[in-house]
């Protein structure tokens, strides 16, 4: 069945983007004369481009995971995952614009290691300059983006090809299987190192080996929330009649499980640093504890307690209303997570979620939803020649 973006959805996303632009402009006008205005804009660009890029990448990772493990149940919602993964090129574009802007402004007080003045006077930063320098940073960034993009295009093309040639379906399936496994190998390294490069290097003096996994778990959880809400939306509109309660239950389980993965990694990083109590490590948490007490711990409480308490039972994971409610709340929670990863290191203790922050987030959200819905129109909603489609149609747990 072909998907059509309804006029209501078109209007809603346009309104979201318009409200976002208005909020951003009002926020900029209100902050006129603030010497941190530039940093504020750059930081928000980084927060939002990373958050939404992460969702596209998370969907690509999830798709590769299904291919590599030869999973059957997901076949009927494969196009939903692909539509979200289809945001990847836009996400890459947003990231590149942000990083280029930062490069041309000597880090814009976001990446202090990009500022030659700081590097010259700060022995810790200059000690890291063998890794953290503009040339190597761009080599790595371009390598990540190019490899993600190439894999994404390959999966997308093979998926369409499989729809058109029934006799090639099995060959393409095994090709996807190999490429999926190869992608996971790249992703295992790149998800860690890219989060060090893009996010952890903001607090240049600080480092944590768990940071990559923690960031990745957050993006994965946001991805699962998007997938489950999008599937529920399509099912409610009657586009996915073959999706049954078991598929929804499985997506709900993934949301529940990734929330726990994220909470587990957040806590592991926090507790190890708390226990060791080494000055250069605890600074990261001291800034957040003293100046962002409510946002930081509130964000953790929401992202951990809501899915744990509400999504624990089997019935809740099959209930569209409960899933959407919890999903939307922790979606905001994970956006806030990225926000508190970035802001304390760039703007400092005085950062707060204002009109500018909300406006840019809403603008990007509207854009993201519009792109994903448009992606859905570009291919039939069910991948007819997927070898496991029959298994997926009879999915029953």
């Amino acid at each position, binding site marked *: 069945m072909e998907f059509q973006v309804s006029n209501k959805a078109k209007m809603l996303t346009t309104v979201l983007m318009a409200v976002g632009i208005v909020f951003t402009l009002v926020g900029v006008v209100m902050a006129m004369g603030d010497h941190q205005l530039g940093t504020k804009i750059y930081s928000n660009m980084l927060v939002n481009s990373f958050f939404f890029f992460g969702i596209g990448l998370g969907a690509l990772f999830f798709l590769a995971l299904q291919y590599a493990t030869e999973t059957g149940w997901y076949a009927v919602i494969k196009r939903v995952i692909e539509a979200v993964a289809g945001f990847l090129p836009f996400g890459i574009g947003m990231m590149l614009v942000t990083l280029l802007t930062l490069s041309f402004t000597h880090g814009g007080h976001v990446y202090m290691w990009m500022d030659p003045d700081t590097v010259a006077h700060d022995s810790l930063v200059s000690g890291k300059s063998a890794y953290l320098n503009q040339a190597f940073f761009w080599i790595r960034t371009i390598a990540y983006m190019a490899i993600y993009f190439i894999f994404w295009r390959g999966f997308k093309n093979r998926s369409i090809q499989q729809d058109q040639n029934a006799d090639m379906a099995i060959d393409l399936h095994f090709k996807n299987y190999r490429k999926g496994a190869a992608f996971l190998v790249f992703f295992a390294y790149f998800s860690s190192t890219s989060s060090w490069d893009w996010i952890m290097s903001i607090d240049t003096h600080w480092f944590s080996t768990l940071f990559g996994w923690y960031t990745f778990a957050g993006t994965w959880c946001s991805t699962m929330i998007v997938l489950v809400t999008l599937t529920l939306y399509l099912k409610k509109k009657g586009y996915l009649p073959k999706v049954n309660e078991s598929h929804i239950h499985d997506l709900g389980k993934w949301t529940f499980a990734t929330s726990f993965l994220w909470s587990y990694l957040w*806590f592991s990083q*926090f*507790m190890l640093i*708390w*226990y060791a*109590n080494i000055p250069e490590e605890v600074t990261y948490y001291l800034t957040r504890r003293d100046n962002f007490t409510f946002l930081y711990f509130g964000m953790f409480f929401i992202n951990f307690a809501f899915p744990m308490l509400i999504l*624990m*039972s*089997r019935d809740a994971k099959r209930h569209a209303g409960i899933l959407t409610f919890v999903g939307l709340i922790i979606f905001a929670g994970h956006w806030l997570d990225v926000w508190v990863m970035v802001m304390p290191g760039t703007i400092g203790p005085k950062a707060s979620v204002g009109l500018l922050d909300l406006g840019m987030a809403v603008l990007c959200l509207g854009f993201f939803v519009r792109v994903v819905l448009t992606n859905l129109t570009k291919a039939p909603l069910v991948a007819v020649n997927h070898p496991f489609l029959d298994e997926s149609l*009879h999915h*029953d747990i």
Partner: protein
Amino acid sequence: MADTVIYAMYDDDDVLKDGAKKLVSKGVKVTEVFSPFPIHGIDPIIGVKNTRLGIMAFLYGLTGLMLATIGMNYFMIQDWPMNIGGKPNGTYLQNFLAFVPISFEFTVLCGAHGMAITYLLRNKNLPGMPAQNPDPRTTDDKFVMELRLSENKNFSAEDLTAMVKETGIVELDQKELK
């Protein structure tokens, strides 16, 4: 309790499933199905209720969490406050973070053991207990459906046998329980 039990044996799970559907649509109550592997979709047909093991798992986990908290509070705070790495040991809350991993582990331990033991007890399946299945071949390649006369008061034993025979069985056995 005197009862007549009918065991119908099949050599294909799909035939059994179709047979069960046919019998249930005529108002017959199927008591139990024995199979070497889980048959997908048989539960709603013969009216097996959803398992309540999950609820028990939650309760066992909660018990573990409480036991761990009471234990650690007594060992590490009340009875013999220990100074480990200079961490505060005045109250439980001050050192709460250090207790989280143990609380988690003990929750999982109690949840897992409680579930396993409940499962084995409920299925009368503890090591050494006599087997419940009517025929050892149901652990190999045969499938058996069990009907009880006491649960099918509207039918006679002959009616049930006749209906079962139409569903593609390979063997039929009838037992009188005393």
